[in-house]
């Protein structure tokens, strides 16, 4: 059993290195969670618990409405996709043609962006919330068959979903609809929606050229919508409590709740559900317990490892909504907030990120397949103290030849970290090159780095 860090991760966590005592628990927040509300309740994954907590009430209300009305309601709610792109969900649904059948709803549960761990928590602890959301979506789209594409590594999550689906089916909640769990098998690229569709069809997860978009030609050549787990988890509350209530949460342009995944150098990493537009500093210094004693913030990635990094001075006063993060030069993405304190070597961090993207490039497009590997090699050299003058220009040049020149956004995911790290922490990189070692570590350690 995983000890998933949820509402009060501090209560379950071992003291961090150095053995400092856990920080005192802050007073209970005024905000009442909507998505994570059942987490921490005993047997939260079972149908009887879910029903006692009001599950499937939103579904009932949605099913009493015509599918078109359901789509209109979701448009009015302002719900935006929580997988990373932030596209309005109701609009996405309305692109599906009415004269081509069948329609498929695919749940993207391939959570794999480093720094993101919200969907796994939802699936393992509250599978009925996802099933209810999926059924609402399937009703709106007229999808008789839906697939939940879950990461292969989430063994417990898949088991819990299968069990919850069996319970829901036995209770008649599925009606004539089918929902199947489809396990991935280890490939970051299958989180990209067209790579996911290829994988669902039993192939390598090579993303498809768009257009045609999945709304017209998706799974098995049929009109398809791919929605993230957290997106669908918003639906039950929207229909149970209504759009007017929903829009009181968050901001005008970014309504609703959001699960922020805080990881890295904070005392209480974990999932924190807050309204969109929540102050970042409150999230880091109050909810997540702040940094370790004596440490100050150096850098922060606000939306999962593929999004541009920000310096500490750039996140002052930042609110966590799509518009505000973009205005600072990054993106909210999946809201995987990775915190780095002043002990961090930015070269080493970027090397780690670039090795990840080099490993996960699917290999379909030459700029990304070759370029991602070159980036990792050059960064490895700089980190090992063997950087040369001109390396930073070379890195940026390679990035220019990847971003925008590939079939899918993986190219940007590969380039953006490099571009932003080099731009915002150029001195750190230059010092590694001129001193031939990491200024923060003794030369011997740098040379033996893995």
């Amino acid at each position, binding site marked *: *059993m*995983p*000890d*998933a*860090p949820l509402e009060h*991760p501090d209560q379950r*966590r*071992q003291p961090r*290195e150095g053995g400092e005592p856990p920080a005192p628990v802050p007073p209970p927040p005024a905000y009442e969670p909507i998505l994570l509300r059942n987490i921490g309740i005993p047997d939260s994954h079972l149908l009887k618990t879910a029903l006692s907590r009001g599950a499937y009430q939103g579904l009932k209300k949605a099913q009493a409405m015509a599918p078109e009305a359901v789509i209109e309601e979701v448009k009015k709610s302002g719900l935006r996709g929580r997988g990373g792109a932030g596209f309005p969900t109701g609009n996405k649904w309305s692109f599906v043609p009415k004269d081509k059948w069948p329609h498929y709803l695919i749940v993207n549960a391939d*959570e*794999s*962006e*480093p*720094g*993101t*761990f919200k*969907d*796994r928590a939802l699936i393992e602890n509250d599978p009925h919330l996802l099933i209810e959301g999926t059924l609402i979506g399937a009703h709106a789209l007229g999808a008789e068959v839906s697939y939940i594409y879950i*990461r*292969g*590594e*989430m*063994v*417990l999550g898949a088991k819990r979903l299968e069990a919850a689906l069996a319970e829901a089916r036995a209770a008649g909640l599925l009606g004539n609809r*089918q929902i*199947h769990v*489809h*396990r*991935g*098998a*280890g*490939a*970051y690229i299958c989180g990209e929606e067209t790579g996911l569709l290829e*994988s*669902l*069809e*039993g*192939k*390598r*997860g090579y993303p498809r050229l768009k257009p045609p978009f999945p709304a017209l030609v998706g799974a*098995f050549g049929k009109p398809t919508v791919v929605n993230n787990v957290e997106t669908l988890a918003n639906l039950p509350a929207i229909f149970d409590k209504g759009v007017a209530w929903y829009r009181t949460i968050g901001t005008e342009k970014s309504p609703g709740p959001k699960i922020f*995944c*805080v*990881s*890295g*150098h904070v005392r209480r*990493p*974990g*999932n924190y559900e807050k309204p969109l537009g929540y102050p970042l500093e409150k999230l880091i210094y109050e909810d997540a317990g702040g940094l370790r004693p004596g440490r100050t913030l150096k850098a922060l990635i606000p939306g999962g*490892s593929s999004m541009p990094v920000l310096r500490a001075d750039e996140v002052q006063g930042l609110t966590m909504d799509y518009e505000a993060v973009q205005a600072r030069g990054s993106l909210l993405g999946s809201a*995987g907030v*990775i915190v*780095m304190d002043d002990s*961090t070597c930015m070269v080493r*961090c970027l090397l*780690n990120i670039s090795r*990840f993207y080099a*490993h996960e490039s*699917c290999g379909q497009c030459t700029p990304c397949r070759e370029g991602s590997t070159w980036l990792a090699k050059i960064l490895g050299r700089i980190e090992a103290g063997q950087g040369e003058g001109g390396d930073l220009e070379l890195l940026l040049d390679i990035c220019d030849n990847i971003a925008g020149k590939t079939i899918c956004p993986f190219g940007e995911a590969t380039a953006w970290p490099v571009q932003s790290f080099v731009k915002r922490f150029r001195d750190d990189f230059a010092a590694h090159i001129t001193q031939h070692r990491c200024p923060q570590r003794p030369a011997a350690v740098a040379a033996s780095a*893995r």
Partner: protein
Amino acid sequence: MAAFSPQALAEFQLILGRYPTKRAATLPTLHLAQREFGWISPEVMAYVAGLLELPPIKVYEVVTFYTMFHQKPVGRHVIEACATLPCALNGAEALLEHVEKRIGIRAGETTKDGRFTLKKAECMAACGGGPCLQVNGDYHEGMTPEKFDRLVAELA
């Protein structure tokens, strides 16, 4: 010749019923095959291809694309250690070194006695509990060298 048990064949029939094409059953059938045979040998690939009425190359393409399909025999316990950034910020690299020393192999290898296979994994969506690792598919979060030693002692 590799062949599914009657029970696995029944599961395979259930899998087929979920999809409009046979080919879509490739990933679930390979998961089933790995559970049955331990790893995906060329012989198993050919068997799965036969079941799905696909040329063997279509199955080979899939097996070699996804990291979870073992193309070599593995130990009784497969340990997958995450070393991606959020885990690395909290000591994953040192933990991996400790794991390698403790069980005496490098990432990517299997112990001679067939007890352990160690793999370096990419982000496993457990960043809030980093460093994390998986043993036989179960998550272990907030890992320390001491916790790992206790865990290993329980694995025969």
